[in-house]
């Protein structure tokens, strides 16, 4: 590869170093000096403007498709499933799936679930409210995320630990030990398929007015999802929806513990729930970067990008870029859009679900858990890829009973 003079002068990150953090001073300093950095896996884009443009640039494709192959997993049920992900498809294949799936994610359909989301949040808080402390991940984030999926799919909510367990195991596939973990991952995948098959079967027999039925009946211009496409998609929805929501809720609590005045404001003005979700995802997104791959050689700003180059769009670094984001953490501020849900053609399918379940949960939490503090040792996933707490002990003053 030819490296132009300006490129070799760019900041450099070792993103495979477990100690590397997308929120570090190193990244802040690099963002001040340059709109991009070199890494051991391609380029990292650091500023808002450039992330925004490259996110939607059609000379780039989604960059995760090759992940299993990079790690020596080239065949078998997991490799097949990964290749089936809508996220890993491009062009007409991607459009076709998106067109078939989109109607099931209608905001209108979701609106009817809001009271159930509120009730669920209250129920979970009831269980620990009087003690004045909790492990936020185990007692709220995990059951809330898993039960929302159960509600969406019409699975009995008591089955949530199974959904959570299967998803967590499949999550191992995004780590570098994927090859060793493969047998476990494939067993979990078979578990998700089993769920999917039962659900598909039941809605074929007895259609209802719900998300699952819409998926099963999805049809456009004489085209339909095949049975395999349906079960692949369902497995992806369960897995993708669980992990990200659980992590993002934990990250939301962290952000508010650091900004107690904003927590009090949210308790007083629950209508700010939606804005709170956006603000949390701007400064503390679980998806710390989005990967793309150049489809052709092209010149962008002052550098030449070769076909095949991996490009990491740093969501949090863009979201906190002082060039466009003034002030600190403020749920009343008008902000340009963040990249917590990606963007462009691959913009997260489930974003209405995530937005609506989190914007119901956060104001209820704010009213009922006053002055939350992190009390004890929190444990965290690495600060790269998808991050979040795995344990988050909180203590708080008791607020509204219900």
């Amino acid at each position, binding site marked *: 590869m030819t490296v132009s003079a300006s490129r070799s002068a760019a900041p450099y990150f070792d993103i495979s170093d477990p100690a590397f953090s997308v929120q570090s001073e190193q990244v802040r300093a690099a963002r001040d000096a340059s709109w991009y950095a070199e890494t051991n896996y391609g380029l990292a884009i650091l500023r808002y403007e450039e992330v925004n443009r490259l996110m939607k640039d059609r000379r780039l494709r989604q960059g995760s498709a090759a992940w299993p192959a990079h790690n020596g997993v080239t065949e078998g049920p997991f490799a097949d499933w990964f290749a089936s992900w809508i996220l890993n498809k491009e062009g007409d294949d991607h459009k076709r799936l998106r*067109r078939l799936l989109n109607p099931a994610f209608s905001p*209108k359909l979701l609106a009817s679930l809001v009271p159930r989301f509120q009730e669920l949040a209250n129920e979970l808080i009831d269980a620990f409210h009087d003690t004045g402390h909790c492990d936020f991940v185990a007692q709220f984030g995990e059951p809330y995320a898993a039960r929302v999926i159960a509600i969406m799919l019409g699975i009995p909510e008591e089955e949530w630990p199974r959904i959570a367990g299967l998803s967590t195991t499949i999550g191992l596939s995004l780590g570098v030990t994927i090859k060793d973990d493969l047998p476990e991952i494939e067993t979990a995948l078979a578990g998700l398929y089993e769920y999917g098959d039962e659900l598909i079967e039941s809605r074929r027999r007895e259609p209802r007015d719900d998300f699952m039925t819409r998926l099963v009946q999805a049809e456009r211009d004489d085209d339909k999802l095949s049975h395999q496409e349906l079960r692949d998609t369902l497995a992806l929805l369960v897995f993708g929806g669980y992990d990200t929501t659980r992590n993002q809720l934990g990250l939301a609590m962290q952000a508010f513990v650091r900004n107690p005045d904003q927590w009090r404001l949210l308790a007083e003005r629950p209508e700010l729930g939606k804005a709170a979700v956006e603000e949390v995802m701007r400064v503390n997104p679980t998806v710390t970067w989005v990967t793309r791959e150049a489809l052709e050689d092209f010149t962008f700003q002052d550098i030449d990008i070769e076909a095949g180059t991996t490009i990491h769009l740093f969501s949090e670094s863009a979201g906190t870029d002082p060039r466009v984001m003034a002030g600190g953490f403020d749920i009343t501020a008008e902000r340009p859009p963040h990249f917590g849900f990606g963007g462009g053609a691959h913009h997260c399918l489930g974003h209405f679900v995530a937005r609506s379940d989190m914007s119901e949960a956060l104001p209820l939490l704010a009213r009922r858990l006053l002055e939350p503090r992190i009390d004890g040792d929190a444990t965290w996933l690495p600060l790269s890829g998808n991050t979040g707490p795995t344990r988050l002990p909180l203590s708080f003053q008791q607020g509204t009973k219900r």
Partner: protein
Amino acid sequence: MKVSVDRSVCQNHGQCAIAAPEVFDIADDGELVYEPEPSDEFEADVEDAADVCPVQAILVGSAG
């Protein structure tokens, strides 16, 4: 039917172009272009487009 997109909120995600390709398109410069008075035969697709737009920028009205 009539369609309008609030340009001040549209972020050119192009989800509308996937839902209703006859009515919405992302031009080569990355900007949204659309047909403001599409034929009624595309009504269902346009409704879907309005539904999936991540920023809910699309307004659908009846003709006349």
